[in-house]
Every structure is written in structure tokens, then in C-alpha cells.
């Protein structure tokens, strides 16, 4: 186990800079998820940590040791790839044991280690099989086993669940989380799926265009987003964003509705009011806006309603049993603590 630090990490390809000075400290045994849309630089960051690419500038420290110029095998890391990358011509046993080739362990010790990993991953019966005889989930477990067997200081996962179907993804998510609790190794996990990030991470790193937007616990990034990007990226459905102007006592929405805030942004300042569909209900709290129900999406315990407000669409949650009818007029309210105000120009939270 080891801590990991990225200091002013920059990566440039042919004059195109894809990472703009990444600074990140990851504690020993921490489970950190890098999340962001395609092209945000999360996989590049992981590849730099792994040593598969050389950083243009900046330092990477693993366990207090700068590893920039070390080969991947010398960095004491193991990586699980999106496409599993288990060798098709080798059995599960050979695949798992492959990472021990350069180890100084004796043959019986290596065998014992393979058996131990197979037991943890519940794969003892599969050791003699070839990858073509395994299901997608089993192949992914082999890939994890191959990483585990080396007992690395840091595990790197590059979107390992994105090729699995929804049910298997949920199951593997849980298994990886349990595995982390059991072995306690530092994990850096890359995904574009914010649900994966929220459910697995100790801390989430949200990236966009090669820049870290926010680092925080799942609760922090959900309840206190640093900017409009984080606010809309985290949470499904996305946070509603309503243009507004600051007033003496709060803000005034485009619809003319005044919303009183404890700390106003300042009179005349252009702002955006963010409110999550989860926090926007009929009846209770501060009135925010009114409109006509355009579409309903029943989810069982609750119903999502798409409300047409002066031509723009706002999503809110309604009762699952007795939702408002399509075409009905609704008045939506939210609690003051659930309102997020962002600067209209910079997008930063106020």
C-alpha cells in the first residue's frame, strides 16, 4: 500500500495539451475515482501513473518516491484494462500467475498465491479454463486477479466495468468495493459513469478538458458542487439551471419570481440558480417557479415530471402514487439549503 501524489502534471501531444497541471494527493488505502466526460484526460492521467506514457512535465510520486522515469514494472502498480486484456492463449491459472513471472517467489509460493487470489475472487473452479470459456464477468474477475496477485502498492482501473451489462456492472461494482475493504490497497479508478463514481469512491475527482474541476467525497460533490459543470455532471437527472439576476434580498428568476436567499450574490449580478430535481417539489419550501406538466416518467416510488416553464423545461420529482396529470399547472418549491447559486459568467459557485 502507498500514497500517491500528482504534482503539476502536464501532458501534451503535438502541441495539444490534454492535461493542464494536475495536482492531486491520494492517501494510503484510499479509493479515488477519476470521472468526467470523454476527452477530459482521466485515462491519460491513469496511463501516466502506470508509466505507459511519459508526462511532458510534472511529478508522479508513489509511496513518497518520484517514479516519472521508472518503467511500469518498477512502479509497483497493477492495472485492470477496459477490455480485460487477459491473454486468450493462456489458462486462467497462467493468466493470474503471469504477473508473478519476474517475482522472486518459489514455484510453490507462486501457486499458493494464485490459489489465494482465486479463492478471494471465487474462481477456484475456473483455473484450468481458457478465457474463451468464461463469461464477461468471469473474464473481468480474471483481470482483477492478475492485478491482485502481485500485491501492488496501487491498483489502477481503467473503466473496467463499461463492457459489462447493467446487472453485472452493479454486481462487479459491489465486488470491487468489497475487495477494497478487504485488501485495503490504494485504488485509482477511472470511469465516465457518475453512478459508479458516487457508489464506489472515498473521494471523487471530477475532470473536464484536462483540468480538475472538484475533488471531494460523493456527498460533497453532490451537495456542494464547485461549479455548473460539476453540478450538471453529478446527479441524474441533471440539476436544473435557471438564469437569474441578483437582488438586494436574493435573486430574481427570468420568470420574475423573487427567491430570498440568506446570502445574496449582490444586486444586478448575473447568476444561475441550480436546483436538483430531487429537491424540487410541489408545495413545500420556497416557491421557485410554476409551469405546466409536459411529460411524466413514473419510476415507481416517485414520478419525474417535466415542467414547461415559459418555453424551457424543468425537471422535478412528484409523488409516485398520485402524480400531477399532464397539462396540469404545478407550483414548484425547494428548501433554501438545496438551492445553488453560480456566477453566470464563470460558472463558479457563489
Amino acid at each position: 500500500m502507498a500514497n500517491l501524489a500528482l504534482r503539476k502534471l502536464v501532458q501534451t501531444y503535438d502541441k495539444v495539451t490534454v492535461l493542464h497541471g494536475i495536482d492531486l494527493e491520494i492517501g494510503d488505502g484510499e479509493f479515488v475515482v477519476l470521472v468526467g466526460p470523454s476527452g477530459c484526460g482521466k485515462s491519460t492521467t491513469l496511463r501516466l501513473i502506470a508509466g505507459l506514457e511519459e508526462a511532458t512535465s510534472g511529478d508522479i510520486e508513489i509511496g513518497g518516491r518520484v517514479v516519472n522515469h521508472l518503467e511500469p514494472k518498477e512502479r509497483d502498480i497493477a492495472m485492470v484494462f477496459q477490455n480485460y486484456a487477459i491473454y486468450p492463449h493462456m489458462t486462467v491459472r497462467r493468466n493470474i500467475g503471469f504477473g508473478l513471472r519476474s517475482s522472486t517467489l518459489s514455484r510453490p509460493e507462486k501457486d499458493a498465491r494464485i490459489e489465494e487470489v482465486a479463492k478471494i475472487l471465487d474462481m477456484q473452479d475456473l483455473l484450468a479454463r481458457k478465457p474463451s470459456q468464461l463469461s464477461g464477468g468471469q473474464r473481468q474477475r480474471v483481470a482483477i486477479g492478475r492485478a491482485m496477485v502481485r500485491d501492488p502498492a496501487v491498483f489502477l482501473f481503467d473503466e473496467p466495468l463499461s463492457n459489462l451489462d447493467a446487472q453485472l456492472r452493479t454486481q462487479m461494482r459491489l465486488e470491487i468495493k468489497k475487495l477494497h475493504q478487504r485488501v485495503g490497497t490504494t485504488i485509482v479508478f477511472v470511469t465516465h459513469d457518475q453512478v459508479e463514481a458516487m457508489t464506489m469512491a472515498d473521494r471523487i475527482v471530477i475532470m473536464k478538458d484536462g483540468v480538475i474541476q472538484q475533488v471531494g467525497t460523493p456527498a460533497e460533490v453532490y451537495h456542494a458542487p464547485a461549479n455548473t459543470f460539476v453540478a450538471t455532471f453529478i446527479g441524474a437527472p441533471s440539476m436544473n439551471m435557471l438564469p437569474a439576476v441578483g437582488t438586494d434580498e436574493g435573486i430574481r428568476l427570468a420568470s420574475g419570481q423573487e427567491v430570498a436567499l440568506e446570502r445574496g450574490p449582490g444586486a444586478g449580478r448575473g447568476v444561475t440558480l441550480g436546483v436538483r430535481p430531487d429537491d424540487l417539489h410541489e408545495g413545500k419550501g420556497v416557491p421557485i417557479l410554476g409551469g405546466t406538466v409536459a411529460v411524466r416518467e413514473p419510476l415507481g416510488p416517485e414520478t419525474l415530471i417535466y415542467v414547461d416553464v415559459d418555453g424551457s423545461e424543468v425537471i422535478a420529482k412528484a409523488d409516485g402514487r398520485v402524480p400531477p396529470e399532464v397539462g396540469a399547472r404545478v407550483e414548484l418549491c425547494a428548501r433554501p439549503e438545496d438551492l445553488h447559486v453560480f456566477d453566470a459568467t464563470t460558472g463558479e459557485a457563489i
Partner: protein
Amino acid sequence: MSDTAIRASSETLLATKAPKRPANMGQILRWLILFLGGIAMIMPIVYMLSTSLKWPHEVYDVNLVPKEPTLDNYRFVLEDGRFYGWFINSLVIATITTICNLFFDSLVGYTLCKFRFPGRYIVFIAILSTLMIPTEMLVIPWYLMSQQFGWLDTYWGIMFPGLMTAFGTFLMKQFFETVPNDFIEAARIDGLNELEIWWTVAMPLVRPALAALAIFVFLGNWTAFIWPLIVTNSVEMYTLPVGLSSFGDEADVAWELIMTGAAISTIPTLVVFLIFQRFIIRGVVMAGLKG
């Protein structure tokens, strides 16, 4: 269910089966072309076998079935000590050349495919461009080279032009393109050096290409004629095709013996094909990535 009942029900099933659609003209034409193509390919082989069973006086008759079939030609060829020498020469040359091609072509193909270095594209184009030069044009420089290095009438002299080929390099490079980089990178993280990655991870994944290349190279060298004819002087160094062409005398060519030798010489090529073709088929069903 009794036998009668089973028969009755199967007859009912057959009776209710949809009638086969009659073949249309297009299909008939395709079959006809394929049939003619098949005949065109098999005829020389049939003629070779037929001639090998004929007496010399019957060789120029066009009949496919010999009037008086004989195995005397086989006895003559197999009892002729020179034949075994030529056979061994061909076998050694074709085998060594095939092994060298598999090694060098795949190594160069892998390097050009998986490594990024300045001039990579130029090197690849330069290798490919050699495909456009016909063998006949290269024979003179090869010969001069062999003469200067003292390789005339040696195994090395026969083999050296074909130890690595542009076609093989191109074929292997294209196949290595299909090996996902994730495998290579996973092996790098697992601690393998680049040569180990090529040998342990990449090579087993391109077995179908290696098998195809092995077949092409072996057959090409087994049947090679012009260069071995030019570079060899002594009868002992002849390869099988060169040796077979020497049957007969100035007045007459012993076609029945040539055909007999050719018929015998097809055996190793069939063996090579049977050994390697299963790798081509097995390679298709391999899987290690989410696909």
C-alpha cells in the same frame, strides 16, 4: 411410439416441408464458373499423376488413363540416389527459410506496428516498395553478391535472398494491427521486456498469420526454380525442381520421370499444409478481449 408411427410422422413432416426453391440462372452460372475453375486447377495435378504412371512412348498421348499403367518411373526415381539429395536440399532450404521468415518478418512487422519512432512510415514504404521489383531484375545483383562473398553453390547462397520478405513483413504487420495494445501494455505492466512481450504475448495471438506465412514461404521455396538454377553449379547442390528438370538428355526430356518426381515432391507440401492449416482455423475462435 412404434416404428410405423415414427415413419408415418416423419413422412408427414417431409411432406409438409416447404419445397426447395429452384436454382436461378445466376446461381447456375456461379456454379459453372466455380466448376470450370476447379477443373482448371485440378487438371495439371491429374495430368502429372497420369503421366507419372505412363511408359515413355505414351507420354505425348493426351489420354488421362494410361493404357498400360506402370510404377517403374517411381522405382527409377526412388532408386536414383540423386533424388534423395535434391529432396534433402529442398527440405533443408525450405525449412530454414520458413523459420527465418517467421522470425524476422514477424519481428519487423511487430516493430513497425507497435512502436512509434521517427522514420517508421518511410521504412515501411521502403520495404513495401521492394515488392514492385520482379525477381528477374534482382537475380544479377544477387548473383554478383553471392560471387563476391563466395556463396555460389552453397545452401546460404540459395537461401539468403528469401530469409526475410517484404510480403511477410507486410502480412505480419497487418496482423499485429489486430492485436489490441491493451495486451502489450498489460504485459509491460506485468514486467515483461519488449522481446518477451513479442514472443510470449503477441506471437501466440497471430498464429493464424504465422501459419499462413509458413505455408506461403515453404511452398514458395519448395517450388523455387530460377534462383536455385542460377546459383547452383554442382548436381549435389540442386534443389528438387532444378534436379527434376535435369532428367533426360539433350535429345529428349524424360517427362514421365519429371512428373514422377513432381508427384513425390508434393507430399511434403501437403504435410506442411495439413500441419499449419489447423492453426488458421483455431486462431479464429480465440478470444481474450470483450468483443
